[in-house]
C-alpha cells in the first residue's frame, strides 16, 4: 500500500508509542512505584553523584553554587550516556516484534531515546525545582538558552544512539568499546569543569569533545554573566548531523537484512 507521508507518520507515532509502553512495562514492571522509576532512578543517581562531588569539592572555588553546578553537569551526562547506552543491543530483544511490518529498527531507537530523554528531563526539572525552592540554587538566568543546550544534547544523544545502536547490530565490537569509552568520556565531557577554568592549550583540546559544547550552553543559560562559556553551536551541529546521517544509513542497511525471530 503506497501510504502518504502523513499516514506513515501516524503509523510511526503509533508504533513508537506502543514500543514505549511495552518498554516501560518490561523494564519496570507493575511492582512498587512502576514507571516512576523512569525518573526516580536518574534522580537517585544525580543526588548520589552530587553528594560525592560536594565531598570532593568538584567545581568549588569559582563562585558557582555547587548544587546547580552538579545538577547541570550530571544531568547532561545522563542525557547522552543513557540514550546511547539504551540503544545498544536494543534490537535483539525486540526481534520477535519485527514480525509486524510496521515495527522497524529505527522505531525501537526512537522509543528508547524518547524514554531516556523523558527520564533525564523530569529528573533535571524536579531536582532543579526542589533545590531552588530549598534555596540551595537559583533558577536559570536564561531559561531558553538552557533549553537550547538541552535540546542540542538530546540531538547529540539520539544521533549517537542511532549510530552505536545500528552499527552494534552487525559489529559486536561497538558494545565492547562503549563501556570503556563512557568511562573515559565522563571526566572530559564537560560536566566536572567549565572550559574557561582550564589553561588555554587544554581548552583547545577539550573543545574537540562534542558534548562539552552542550554542557557549556546549558551552564551559560543557567549562570548567565557569572561564567564565560566557550562553545561552538556549529561544531556540535556538524558532529550531530554526521552521526545522524551515518546512523540512519546504517540502520537502513541493517533493517534490510534483519530476520525476525
Amino acid at each position, binding site marked *: 500500500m503506497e501510504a502518504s507521508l502523513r499516514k506513515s507518520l501516524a503509523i510511526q507515532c503509533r508504533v513508537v508509542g506502543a514500543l514505549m509502553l511495552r518498554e516501560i512495562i*518490561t523494564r519496570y514492571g507493575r511492582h512498587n512505584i512502576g514507571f516512576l522509576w523512569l525518573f526516580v532512578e536518574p534522580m537517585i543517581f544525580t543526588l548520589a553523584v552530587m553528594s560525592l562531588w560536594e565531598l570532593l569539592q568538584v567545581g568549588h572555588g569559582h563562585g558557582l553554587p555547587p548544587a546547580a553546578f552538579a545538577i547541570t553537569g550530571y544531568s547532561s551526562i545522563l542525557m547522552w550516556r543513557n540514550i546511547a547506552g539504551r540503544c545498544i543491543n536494543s534490537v535483539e530483544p525486540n526481534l520477535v516484534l519485527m*514480525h*509486524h511490518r510496521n515495527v522497524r529498527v529505527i522505531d525501537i531507537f526512537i522509543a528508547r531515546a524518547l524514554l531516556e530523554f523523558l527520564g533525564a528531563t523530569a529528573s533535571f526539572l524536579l531536582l532543579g525545582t526542589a533545590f531552588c525552592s530549598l534555596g540551595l540554587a537559583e533558577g536559570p538566568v536564561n531559561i531558553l538558552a538552557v533549553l537550547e543546550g538541552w535540546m542540542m544534547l538530546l540531538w547529540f544523544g539520539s544521533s549517537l544512539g542511532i549510530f552505536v545502536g545500528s552499527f552494534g547490530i552487525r559489529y559486536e565490537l561497538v558494545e565492547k568499546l562503549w563501556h570503556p569509552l563512557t568511562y573515559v568520556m565522563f571526566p572530559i565531557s564537560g560536566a566536572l569543569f567549565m572550559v574557561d577554568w582550564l589553561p588555554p592549550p587544554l581548552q583547545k583540546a577539550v573543545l574537540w569533545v562534542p558534548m562539552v559544547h552542550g554542557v557549556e550552553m546549558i551552564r551559560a543559560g543557567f549562570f548567565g554573566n557569572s561564567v564565560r562559556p566557550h562553545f561552538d553551536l556549529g561544531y556540535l551541529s556538524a558532529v550531530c548531523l554526521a552521526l545522524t546521517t551515518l546512523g540512519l544509513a546504517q540502520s537502513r542497511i541493517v533493517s534490510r537484512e534483519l530476520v525476525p525471530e
Partner: protein
Amino acid sequence: MIEVDSVCKRYRTRTGVQHVLENVGFTVSPGEKVGILGRNGAGKSTLIRLISGAELPTSGRIMRSMSVSWPLAFSGGFQGSLTGLDNLRFICRVYGVSHQERVAYLEEFSELGRYLREPVKYYSAGMRARLAFGISMAVDFDCFLIDEIVAVGDNRFRQRCERELFEKRGDRARIVVSHDPVFMREHCERAMLLEAGSLNTFDSFDQALEHYAAGGRQ
C-alpha cells in the same frame, strides 16, 4: 491484490551467500486461497515473511493493495516477559485498533482465565498457541498469511481455529504455506510448489500435488 514481482532473497552466512529465493513472482487477488507447498527448508517461511513485509527482499518488489496480516504461526511474535493481555494491547496499538472490546473476545477464545495476566514465558505450548491465535484474530485483514498451522493444539482448539479462520473469515484471501498436502487441499483453491528457491505454478491442484509427491520419491 498482492503482487510479488521477481523477488530474490539472499542471506549472508558464515559459509558464503545463501540463495533462498530466486526470481519468485505471482499475484493473489482479493478472496483467493493460495497454498504454497514445499519441503522443510525450501524457503516457505522466508517467502511468507517477505509477503508480510516483516523482511525485505534482496531484489524485486512486493506490492500490497489490500491489508495483509503478519505470518500467523501460533508461537512467535510475542514477548515472553509481557503478559498475554499486554501482548494483545501492544498488537492493538501497533495496528491502530482499540483493545477494550477485544479483551473480552480474547478471554473467551483463549480460555486462559487468570493466566492472561501472567507473563507469556510461563505458558505451555498449547496455551501460547491459544493466545497467539486469539490475538491474531483481534485485527481484521483482507488477507491472512498462515505458516504451518497444523502442528499445535488439541482437536478442540484446532476445530475452533478452523471455524474462526476458515468459516467466519472465509471471504478473505489467504496464503497458506505447509508441507502437508492434505491440509492444503482442504483449505486452498490453488497450489504452488516451492523447490530449491524457485516457485512453480500449476494449472490444477492435482498436478501440483502430483509433482510434489513425485519430488518426495526421488
